[in-house]
């Protein structure tokens, strides 16, 4: 079952190779592109293996399922690995134009790929403690990427980021310890089976709170999101964009996995919590964004409000809402990273990220304006762009289950997202530049943005294909028995014998 482990091995090898190759731009970027392309192709192959609904599972070190560490791929994991491969490919492409020589010398490409390794591991593992380890791999490399270059402001942001994330780590570890104390196992599928026999709802609820807080800090929910807007606008644009796309989504994935697989016995409790969290996260994120004038800070606050939409999908907890959540997740990873990439181009063209100091871009380079228009208005939920379908299906599932407050909050948030996007549009593109009009933008750095914009367009024009996948993934999530069987069945054992 090498296809399950390759998504971790490929970035690991790429990262190691980039240490020993010359630190010149063409070498590093070509290596990074090759590695990420390999990851993308491998993950597509993995997806083709699980697309029909089979759940692949493999064990390590010759220990059978509940004892050894397992890697499991269902549709959700496989699609997320595909998106990770795509994002790291685009990020490497953009890094060619964005990352300075100093950071390349310090091993930027290595850290990028080690982080990808951690992300893929977290998506694929079927073991709680192993999940903790992958989170740590991701975390330590994200520290390195954030502080690399050690600009003064980067250090400020990185300290805040580190402090809050380390607290999340400790809480996650305690939660694993307590869950182990109650069930006596660390394998997720085995835990899911064992937890049925625990009759004490108080203990279960307490442990689930620990998980919510730990993953909540990682995924930046209300009121635990303060590390995000303090740090995401400070590192180089490539780092911001990759973090904005992937980091918080790993937290959402972990929440989704834990609450569809393990804590399924007290869903009333966790879902009622998620209703509150979702509403407050959406509204506080979007209100935070509306007072900002730095493009990257506006976008950072919007990450928070969009995490709220995803938590809303979990709060409603039907097939439709989970499917909408996943659609939103994919749409958001692509559109949000793209906006960060474009913010870098805007800053290079006009000299600043601050909306008060820039302008005149529409006159100077109308092509790039269209490039901004697509992800920005997709994020706001304009019809026939991917965000419209994501929000439409989420809100529809909310109406179907009569979560009126959530639906109201989601619509309100959508309106204010539109406000923020039109703010950037009118300030950066329409308004004349306060000092000197920018030159027409020429350069290949629009290539990664175009790639992502085309994907957003395709997702918006032909949403049915992606919805077919997310529907299946949501169905799988709501039938945890299949996951448990795939991990604990004899199938794994026979696989080992071969």
């Amino acid at each position, binding site marked *: 079952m090498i296809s399950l482990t390759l998504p971790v091995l490929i970035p690991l090898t790429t990262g190691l190779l980039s240490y020993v190759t010359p630190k010149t731009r063409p070498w590093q970027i070509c290596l990074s592109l090759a590695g990420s392309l390999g990851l993308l192709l491998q993950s597509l192959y993995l997806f083709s293996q699980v697309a029909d609904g089979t759940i692949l599972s493999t064990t390590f070190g010759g220990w059978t399922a509940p004892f050894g560490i397992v890697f499991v791929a269902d549709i959700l994991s496989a699609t997320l690995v595909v998106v990770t491969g795509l994002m790291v490919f685009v990020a490497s492409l953009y890094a060619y134009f964005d990352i300075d020589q100093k950071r390349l010398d310090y091993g930027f490409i290595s850290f990028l790929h080690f982080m990808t390794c951690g992300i893929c591991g977290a998506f694929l593992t079927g073991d709680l*403690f192993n999940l*903790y*380890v992958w989170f*740590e791999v991701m*975390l*330590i490399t994200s*520290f*390195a990427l954030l*502080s690399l*270059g*050690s*600009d*003064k*402001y*980067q*250090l*400020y*942001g*990185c*300290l*805040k980021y*580190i*402090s809050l994330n*380390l*607290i999340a*780590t*400790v*809480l996650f*570890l*305690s939660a*694993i*310890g*307590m869950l*182990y*104390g109650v069930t006596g196992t*660390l394998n997720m599928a085995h835990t899911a089976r064992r937890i049925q026999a625990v009759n004490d709802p108080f203990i279960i609820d307490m442990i689930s709170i620990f998980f919510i807080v730990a993953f909540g800090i990682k995924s930046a929910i209300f009121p635990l999101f303060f590390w995000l*807007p*303090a*740090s995401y*606008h*400070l*590192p*180089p644009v490539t780092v911001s964009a990759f973090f904005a796309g992937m980091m918080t989504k790993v937290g959402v994935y972990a929440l989704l996995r834990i609450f569809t697989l393990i804590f399924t016995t007290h869903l009333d409790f966790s879902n009622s919590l998620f209703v509150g969290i979702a509403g407050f996260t959406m509204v506080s994120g979007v209100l935070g964004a509306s007072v*900002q*004038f*730095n493009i990257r*800070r506006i976008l950072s606050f919007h990450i928070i409000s969009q995490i709220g939409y995803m938590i809303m999908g979990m709060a409603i907890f039907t097939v439709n809402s989970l499917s909408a959540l996943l659609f939103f997740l994919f749409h958001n990873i692509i559109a949000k990273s793209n906006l960060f990439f474009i913010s870098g181009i805007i*800053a*290079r063209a006009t000299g*600043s*990220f*601050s909306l008060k*100091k820039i302008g005149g871009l529409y006159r100077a380079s109308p092509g790039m304006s269209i490039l901004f228009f697509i992800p920005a208005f997709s994020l706001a939920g304009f019809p026939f762009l991917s965000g419209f379908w994501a929000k439409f299906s989420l809100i529809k599932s909310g109406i179907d289950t009569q979560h009126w407050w959530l639906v109201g909050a989601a619509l309100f948030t959508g309106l204010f997202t539109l406000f923020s996007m039109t703010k950037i549009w009118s300030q950066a593109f329409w308004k004349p530049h306060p000092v000197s009009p920018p030159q027409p933008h020429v350069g290949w750095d629009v290539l990664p943005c175009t790639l992502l914009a085309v994907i957003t367009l395709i997702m918006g024009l032909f949403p049915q294909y992606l919805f077919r996948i997310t529907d299946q993934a949501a169905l799988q999530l709501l039938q945890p028995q299949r996951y448990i069987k795939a991990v604990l069945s004899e199938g794994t054992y026979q696989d080992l014998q071969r």
Partner: protein
Amino acid sequence: MEIVIPLLAAVLTTFGVYLMMNTNMVKFLFGLILFSNAANVIIFSAGRLTVGHPPFIPKGHEVPLTDVANALPQALILTALVIGFGLLSFALVLAYRAYQEIGTLDIDDFECTDLDKTDETGDPL
């Protein structure tokens, strides 16, 4: 005797959280060290405690003869300790680096990254 270990976790958490509420970054990190060790103690006690029965299997046998200590939590703690050590040493080095760069480690004295001040003084491009 089992109650001692949870009490230890409680004491570590208390002092850890107290230190973490300090505005000085170094004290915060020291608090975090205590707090993360509380998590390790929690894992240790979650594996059920036994006194004086190390998990050894006598020669010629395939399973231990009596009830022995649970070896898994100890392995987990070992892993968590190593990871925690790495993270905390990185954080301490970063704090030192920040001290060199900024001249203070008091969070109240930091210029706030949450404000838009950054791009006045050269937001990294």
